[in-house]
C-alpha cells in the first residue's frame, strides 16, 4: 500500500530524477505493469515519476494548457517542493516573506504563533453579532489571494492599502446605521459614563476577550473628544468607527498570553489563551465570533484546554446555521471551485450552463453540508450519494426529477464527482477534459503529485476536431513518449468521465462516436479497470489513501495556514479512526478540535 507522508512517497520532478517509467518502452497504457509498480516505486524511493524528456522532438501535450486557468496552474517551470525530509525551503526574502511552516508531525507545532485577519464573511458575521442585527450592509472586501484552493490562509490575509481604505470608508456607513439607535436604547445622551455604558458591552463582544480598560478608555475618549465640537451621537459614531477598524477587531490573535509571546521569548512553544481558543473554535465552526457561553468558558483558565469541553462546545456550535455555511465553504474550496464562476463555457444548445451555475455551486455546498451535519456522512457517502440538494432548473439540466428540494440523481451520477460544479470546473469550454478530471483525482483526492510537463516541451491542446471523439483527441498522450510517462497517470482516470461534456451535461453521443467511459485507476490502493465515473467513485469510496488525503485537507482548512505536505503526518494520529474508515466527517472535525492544533503554537519566527 502506498503510504502518505512517511518519507517514502517523496516526489521528484522529471528534471531531477529519472523515474521508472522512463524505462518502459511500450507507448500504451499497460495496467498490469502499472499495478505492479507501487512496490518498485517504494523500493526505489520514488513516487509518481514521469518519462523524462529524452529528445527535442516537438510534441503536443495538454499539460499546462489544461490546467493553467485561474486558480489552478501547473505549468512548465514549476518546481515541485513537496519534500518531506525536514528541510525547510529557503525563504529568499527573509523574514517579511511568507510564513514557511515547519515540517512537523506534532499538531501543536504545525502552525506558528500568529495573527489572522478576519475574512470578509467573518468580518460581516462579527458585525452582525456585535450589534445583534442582520440587516446591516455587508462589506465587500477586495478579493484576497487564494492559495492551494483555499481563501482563508493566514499568511495571505493582510490589511493592504486598498482594504484599509475600504474599511475606512465603509465602517463609517456602518457606524452611521447603528449609532442613533444605540443612543436611544441607552436612555442617556451625555457624558463619559453614558458613552461607557453603550460602548462596553459592544467592545466585549467585538474584541472577543481582548477588551480591557485600556481599549475601552480609548473608545470613550474618542467619543468624548468628538462630542466636544459635535453631538453625543457623533461621538458614539466615531468611537464605533474605531471599534470596527481596530486591530482587536480585525485580527484574531494566536499568540498566547502577552508575556509568553513577546518577540524576545521566541524559541519556545506557545500555549494559547482561553480567549484565543474560544475565538478559534467559533470562527472555525461557525465563521463568527464566540458567543456568551464560549466567552464564559474562556473566563476559566483551564476549561477550554480540556478536549472533552471543546468537543461539547464544537458539537453545540455545529448545530448553528453558520456551521452549514462553513462546511459549504470547505466543500467549495476543497473542490477548488472559487474560480468556477469566471470560466467560459459554451452556451449553445438548450441547456445553458450560465443559468444553472449559481444553483450548481449551491448544490455542492448544501449537499455536502447536509450530508455531513444531518446525515453523519463519511467520505464514502460523499462519493456515493444518490440525491442532491438542488433546484428545478438544475434537475432539468441533469434530466432528473426533483422532490422537496432533493434531486434524484440519474444513474450516471453518484456523489460529488458527478455533480455539475466539479465537471464544469474541470472541463474545457465545450469538451470535457480527461486531463483536468484525472489530474484532480490524482492530486486533490489522492494527494499524489504529478510533475508538470517538461520545460522544453511545447504544450498545445489537441485541436477541437468535430469529427473526433473527445478521447481520440488525447491519443497523442498515449503514443508520444514525451507525454505518455505522465499522462498515463492522469488520462485513464479522466476517461471515466467521458459521458460528461465541458459544462457537466450528459453526453449520449461523442461527435458521432459511441461514448466510451472505460478507464483505469492505477498506483492507488483501489486499483482496477473503470467502467465509468460512478465506478471510479465507488472505488475511491473504499480508498484509505483518499481518506488520508481528505483528512489532510480538512486539517489545512482548519489550520488556515499553508502547511508543508510532509506535515500531513501530523494528522495521522488524530485522524486514525477516520482513516481506518470508522469515523464520519463531523467526528474528524471534532477530533481536530480536540487536538493541540486548537491550543498550541510553534514560536514565532
Amino acid at each position, binding site marked *: 500500500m502506498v503510504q502518505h507522508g512517511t518519507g517514502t512517497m517523496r516526489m521528484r520532478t522529471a528534471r531531477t530524477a529519472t523515474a521508472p517509467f522512463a524505462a518502459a518502452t511500450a507507448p500504451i497504457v499497460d495496467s498490469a505493469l502499472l499495478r505492479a509498480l507501487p512496490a518498485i516505486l517504494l523500493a526505489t524511493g520514488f513516487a509518481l515519476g514521469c518519462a523524462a524528456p529524452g529528445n527535442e522532438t516537438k510534441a503536443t501535450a495538454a499539460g499546462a494548457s489544461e490546467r493553467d486557468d485561474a486558480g489552478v496552474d501547473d*505549468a512548465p517551470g514549476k518546481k515541485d517542493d513537496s519534500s518531506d525530509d525536514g528541510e525547510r*525551503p529557503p525563504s529568499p526574502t527573509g523574514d517579511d516573506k*511568507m510564513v514557511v511552516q515547519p515540517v512537523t508531525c506534532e499538531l501543536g507545532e504545525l502552525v506558528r504563533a500568529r495573527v489572522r485577519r478576519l475574512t470578509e464573511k467573518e468580518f460581516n458575521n462579527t458585525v452582525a453579532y456585535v450589534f445583534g442585527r442582520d440587516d446591516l450592509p455587508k462589506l465587500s472586501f477586495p478579493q484576497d489571494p487564494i492559495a*492551494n484552493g483555499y481563501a482563508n490562509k493566514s499568511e495571505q490575509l493582510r490589511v493592504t492599502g*486598498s482594504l484599509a481604505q475600504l474599511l475606512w470608508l465603509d465602517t463609517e456607513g456602518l457606524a452611521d446605521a447603528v449609532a442613533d439607535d444605540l443612543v436611544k436604547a441607552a436612555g442617556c445622551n451625555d457624558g463619559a459614563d453614558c458613552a461607557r455604558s453603550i460602548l462596553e458591552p459592544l467592545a466585549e463582544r467585538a474584541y472577543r476577550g481582548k477588551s480591557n480598560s485600556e481599549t475601552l478608555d480609548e473608545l470613550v475618549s474618542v467619543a468624548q473628544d468628538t462630542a466636544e465640537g459635535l453631538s453625543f451621537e457623533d461621538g458614539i459614531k466615531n468611537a464605533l468607527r474605531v471599534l470596527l477598524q481596530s486591530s482587536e477587531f480585525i485580527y484574531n490573535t494566536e499568540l498566547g498570553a502577552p508575556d509568553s509571546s513577546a518577540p524576545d521569548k521566541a524559541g519556545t512553544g506557545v500555549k494559547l489563551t482561553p480567549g484565543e481558543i474560544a475565538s478559534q473554535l467559533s470562527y472555525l465552526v461557525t465563521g463568527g465570533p464566540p458567543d456568551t457561553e464560549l466567552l464564559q468558558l474562556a473566563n476559566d483558565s483551564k476549561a477550554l484546554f480540556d478536549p472533552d469541553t471543546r468537543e461539547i462546545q464544537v458539537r453545540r456550535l455545529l448545530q448553528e446555521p453558520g456551521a452549514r455555511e462553513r462546511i459549504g465553504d470547505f466543500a467549495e474550496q476543497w473542490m477548488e471551485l472559487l*474560480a468556477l464562476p*469566471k470560466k467560459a463555457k459554451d452556451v449553445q444548445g438548450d441547456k445553458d450552463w450560465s443559468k444553472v451555475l449559481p444553483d450548481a455551486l449551491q448544490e455542492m455546498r448544501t449537499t455536502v453540508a447536509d450530508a455531513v451535519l444531518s446525515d453523519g456522512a463519511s467520505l464514502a457517502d460523499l462519493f456515493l450519494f444518490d440525491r442532491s440538494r438542488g433546484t428545478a432548473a438544475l434537475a432539468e439540466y441533469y434530466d432528473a426529477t426533483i422532490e422537496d428540494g432533493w434531486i434524484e440523481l440519474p444513474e450516471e451520477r453518484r456523489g460529488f464527482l458527478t455533480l455539475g460544479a466539479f465537471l464544469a470546473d474541470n472541463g474545457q469550454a465545450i469538451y470535457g477534459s480527461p486531463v483536468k478530471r484525472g489530474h484532480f483525482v490524482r492530486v486533490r483526492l489522492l494527494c499524489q503529485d504529478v510533475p508538470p510537463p517538461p520545460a522544453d516541451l511545447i504544450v498545445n491542446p489537441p485541436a477541437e476536431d468535430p469529427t473526433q471523439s473527445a478521447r481520440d483527441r488525447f491519443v497523442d498522450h498515449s503514443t508520444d513518449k514525451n507525454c505518455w510517462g505522465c499522462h498515463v497517470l492522469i488520462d485513464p482516470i479522466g476517461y471515466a468521465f467521458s459521458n460528461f461534456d465541458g459544462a457537466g451535461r450528459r453526453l449520449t453521443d461523442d461527435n458521432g462516436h459511441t461514448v466510451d467511459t472505460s478507464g483505469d485507476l492505477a498506483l492507488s490502493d483501489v486499483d482496477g479497470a473503470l467502467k465509468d465515473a460512478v465506478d471510479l467513485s465507488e472505488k475511491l469510496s473504499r480508498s484509505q489513501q483518499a481518506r488520508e488525503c481528505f483528512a489532510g485537507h480538512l486539517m489545512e482548512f482548519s489550520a488556515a495556514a499553508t502547511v508543508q505536505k510532509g506535515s500531513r503526518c501530523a494528522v495521522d494520529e488524530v485522524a486514525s479512526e477516520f482513516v481506518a474508515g470508522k469515523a464520519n466527517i463531523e467526528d474528524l472535525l471534532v477530533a481536530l478540535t480536540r487536538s493541540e492544533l486548537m491550543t498550541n503554537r510553534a514560536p514565532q519566527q
Partner: protein
Amino acid sequence: MASIKHQRRQFIRAVGASATALPFFDLLRSSAVQGQGSGDPLRLVTLYTSHGGDWIYTRPKGVNVSKRGVSSPIDAESLKFEHSVLEPLAKHVSRMMVLEGVGMTEGLLRGGGNDPTQARTLFVGHEHTAGNAFTGSRIEWQGEEAYPLGPSLEYELGQQLGGDTAVRSIQLGLAAATHSHVGCVSFNESGQRLPGIGEPRESFRQLFGDNFAVSEGDTGPDLELRNNLRVVDALQKSAERLRGRLAGPERAKLDEHLSAMADIESRLEAQSKAVIPISCGEPSAPPEKVTDFQEVSQLQLDVLAQALACNRTRFVGMSWGSSISKMEFLHGNEVADLHSDVAHAVDVRDTSDEYTPDSLKASQHMAQVNRWYATQLAQFMDRLDSIQEGDGTVLDNTLIVWAQDFGPQVHGGLNVPYILLGGGATQFKMGRHLHISDPVDPNERQWPQLTRVERSTPNNHLMISILNEFGIETDKFNSEEFTGPLSDLT
C-alpha cells in the same frame, strides 16, 4: 465652525448603466496641477494584457531587425496593414516606442531560487510571466503558489515618490484574475500579491473617497478633519500595541497595516489642504456592479484618466483580461474560450511562411484581441491628451508601458512585446521601433534554443531606465545579474 465648505458627496452621480464613457471628460480641459508652477509630475501606468504577442502582426512595416541595437523610425503608414495590432494607435505613433527583443529572463529560471541547476527555460507558465513582467524578478514557488522576490515597478515608484498624492500607487484589474498568480502583476516589497481592484466603482472610491470636495477656496484644519485624525490616531495606537507583540512575518503584516493607515492619514490631510481643484472638473462615479468585459474595461480606464488628471495618484499597475476571458464580442460564438481555443492554437513562427492554416487563423484571432486592447488604449490616450498640463498635456507626462503575457510561441518568455506610449516629457526617444536582441536565424528555429535566452535583453534593464527617468538613481532592480539601464532608449 468649519472654515471651508465641504461639499459632501454620496457619490450618487452614477451614469446610466448603458453609458460607458463618463460625461466628465466633456468638461475637463486642464489637469489638477495645471498652473501650480511646481513642475509637472511624471506618471507611470504599467499595463499587462493576457496571452501572447505575435510579432508578425505587432511589428510595424519596414523596420530593421537585422542586428541588435538598430532603430527604425515609424509612422502611421508603417502601422497600417491587415491584422495590424498597433494600427488603432496610429494617431499616437510619435509617442510610441516598440521594443523588440525584451526577455523575461529572470522569470525563465526554473523553480526560481530553489533550482539547483540554475538553468533557464524557454517556456514557462503564466505565473512566471505575470510575476516577472514588471518586477523583472525570478519566481519562487512556495508550495502551490508562485511569487516574485521583490516589488513591481509602479509599487516601488509609489513608495518612493507617491507621498504627495492621495494614493501612492494603485493596482487595477480590468476583468483580470489578479487574485491568483496567473493574473497578478503587482507586488509589494516582499513579493506578496497586490490583487487589482476589479470594480470600476471601487476603483473610484479608492481614488477619490466617498466625501471628496471640490473647491477653489483656501482651506484650513476643520472639525471633520480633526475628528477623522482622532480616529486614525486611535487605530494606529491599536495596531502598534499588537505589532509590539509580533516578530518576523507576523510583524510585517502590522507594518503593512500601519503603512496603510499612514497613507489614509496623509490622504485626509492632503484632502483638507488641497481639495480637488475646480480646474480638473467634478469627478463622476461609474455605476456599480458592472460585469461586462468591455464596460468594465472602459470604465476602469475612465476612472483612471480622471484620477491622473486630478493628480490623485501617479503610479498605476493594471492587469487586463485573464487567461479565460471570453471576449465573445470579438469572436461571436466561434470562440468559446480564448485561452484554449485561440492562444494555445497559435504556434507563431518568426516569419509568416510556416503557419499552418489553423495556427494562422488563431494568430489572426489573437491579433484581433490585441488590436482591441490597442483601440481602448488609444481612446485612453486621447483623453489624457485632451487635458492641458504645463506646456503640453497629461499624456506627455504619463509613460505607459504595455507588456504582454508571452512572446512568440505558446508559453514563450522571450521577445515579449514591450511597448512604450506617451511619455513625451521623458528623455526616451519615441516614434520608433527598437530592436534589442540578436537577430533570429530562421535556421535555428528548432527547439529548444536556450542560447536565445542570452541573446535577448532582460527586462530589468528597461525597468532600471524607467526608474532613472523618474529620478531614482539605481542600477539594480530585482536582479543581481542584470544591472544597469538600457542605453538605447534615450
